[in-house]
């Protein structure tokens, strides 16, 4: 569906993207994750034809990406880009007109989109009266009017309540069932785990991991054993390797979690050490993210 081959982009002397190779299949919900300043937004803007790449090729359905491809792509920006003094209907009408939707077709698409984003009853309301979640949904709706094959969503759930987030997740699931391809960026790893079937980790303008969630977990994550004591008992863990703090307890990374679990259980029983939890810990996307990109604050965050 979308093939990105050797795409590079630099700003002055800084490389924003370096030889990116990604293949996105039709119907994918493809997650683009990475720390701030990693190059995700640059890649998204290139895919949306907002920016031009310096080198490499991008094809959509085997056709080169160009201005005319914009009718195949719907772009949902991170910022809420709506005219707040106007109604939801005014905003949708504007974007429908830009995509050359007219008359009956425009009305039908607007009705369908309002239904999809659950704002049918608020269509005549001024956007400034909307909650953050309603604005986010309308922000998405504006990108759906021309019924694009590909929807690019840049952190669409920032700053909204769980109900609105759930509503957006449902919308994404519905769109996938309709065969739409979704490119999704988020800083919420559990969100990416829940929504995306394939992921690319980008850091310093390069793809550092890429594939299905299972492939990435196999390649980059170690299982472990998690233990939580009734009282502080860190000294007893010094005999184990790869111990790290995790939540209220500790996690030990290992290739053989069951053997380690058995060994620890015996030792705690023998030494009468009271524990709250002792279990095999499955790797999560956030762990892989931190493992691949490190825990140091990035420039933007540090500021």
């Amino acid at each position, binding site marked *: 569906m979308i093939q990105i081959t050797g795409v590079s982009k630099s700003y002055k002397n800084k490389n924003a993207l370096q030889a990116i190779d990604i293949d996105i299949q039709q119907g994918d919900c493809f997650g683009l994750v990475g720390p701030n300043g990693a190059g995700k937004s640059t890649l998204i*803007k290139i895919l*949306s*034809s*907002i920016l031009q790449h310096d080198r490499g090729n991008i094809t959509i359905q085997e056709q080169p990406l160009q*201005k*005319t491809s*914009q*009718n195949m*792509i719907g*772009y949902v*920006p*991170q*910022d*809420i*880009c709506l*005219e707040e*003094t*106007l109604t939801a209907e*005014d905003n949708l009408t*504007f*974007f429908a*007109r*830009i*995509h*050359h939707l007219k008359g009956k077709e425009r009305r039908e698409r607007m009705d369908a989109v309002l239904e999809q984003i659950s704002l049918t009853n608020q269509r005549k309301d001024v956007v400034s009266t909307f909650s953050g979640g309603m604005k986010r949904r309308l922000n998405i709706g*504006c990108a759906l009017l021309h019924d694009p094959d590909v929807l690019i969503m840049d952190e669409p759930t920032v700053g909204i309540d769980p109900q609105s987030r759930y509503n957006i997740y449902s919308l994404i699931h519905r769109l996938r069932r309709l065969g739409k391809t979704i490119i999704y960026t988020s800083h919420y790893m559990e969100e990416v785990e829940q929504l995306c079937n394939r992921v690319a980790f980008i850091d310093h303008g390069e793809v550092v991991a890429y594939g299905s969630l299972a492939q990435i977990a196999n390649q980059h994550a170690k299982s472990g054993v998690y233990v939580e004591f009734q009282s502080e008992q860190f000294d007893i863990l010094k005999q184990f390797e790869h111990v790290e703090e995790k939540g209220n307890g500790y996690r030990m990374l290992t290739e053989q979690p069951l053997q380690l679990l058995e060994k620890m259980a015996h030792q705690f029983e023998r030494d009468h050490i009271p524990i709250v939890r002792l279990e095999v810990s499955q790797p999560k996307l956030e762990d892989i993210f931190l493992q691949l990109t490190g825990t140091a604050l990035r420039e933007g965050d540090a500021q």
Partner: protein
Amino acid sequence: MFSMYVLEMKKNLKDKGLIFWTLLLPIAFIVVFASIFGSDTTDQELTLHYVDTDQSEASAELLQEISTLKNVELVKEESYANSVEQIQSGQMNVLFHLPEGFSNDGSTHLYYEQVREEVAAPVIAMLENLRYGLQAEEQYTLAQEEWENAAMVAEFFTPPFTIFYEAQDSGGEVDAITHLIPGYAVMFTFFIMISMVTSFIKDQRSGMLSRLAATPLAPLQYLGGKWIAFITIVFLQVVILLLFGYFVYDINLGNVPAITVVSLLLALTATGLGLGLSLIVRTENMGIALTQVIALGGAIVAGLWMPLEFMPSFIQTISVGLPQYWAHQAFLDVMSRGATIVDIWPSLAMLLGFSILGAFIAWLSYGRYVKHAN
């Protein structure tokens, strides 16, 4: 382009600030300044307070002469001391005193507050004029009595030159309000730049510009749609202000096609330069500050507030380089001198040139404007 135009019009028509800047404020200015400058100044009366201590036939004669002057009102004061106190406290402007002995030596005193000399100036001019007039009259009578040669008397008292006042009818009506209304209309059209800067910077910062770049909307359609919306607003602004002048102050609009073309080209110029400014500035504050300089500075230098003839020659030279000057001249030509489109073509060409310049700057700056978009 039409979709962009409709969106911008809807946005702006809901903007109360825009209505204030484009209509309410200029109308308030016109009403206030028309009430100040619009009244007939030839009917204004000079009030002259006087105290006649001399109480002679000569003093009565002089006061009689003064009372016959047009637009002079004599007010008799009983107490000389009280009147001087009133002048010192600013309660009286001028006091004319004819002291005892006036009939012998002709001495009079004019009292006025030193810090308000300009208030006394017209009274001083009037009294000086009267003094020279009476002196000439006295000399003429004396010469007639003493000189035998009447021709010599007539020749002696004939002034060195004579003025024949011949006002030319330029086909229209010229009064203070006919100058004032187009002046303020021109000045306030340039305040549209504030709304334009705000709109473009908001698009750039809010992510709307990036979002639009991801749609089939071409840059020309984006710029054109927004520009035409602002042209429409400014054109309506000028039309409403001129119609306000027509219906409330009965000003002469002159040739309708000509006044329409001037209004349209003024709208094109103010918004064209606004377009250029909006795409150059980095911040809204910078845009607002530059608009103040362009709108207010341009209004002063281009003679929208006071006739250019009252200004230094270098200001008059600079004014020719300003769009406000050409727009104002075109309006005055049409409204006061009955000019048609053909008569004012140089002004129209200059306005068109300024609007093209603004649009050209905008086109050159568009790439950088998009590059800095969020």
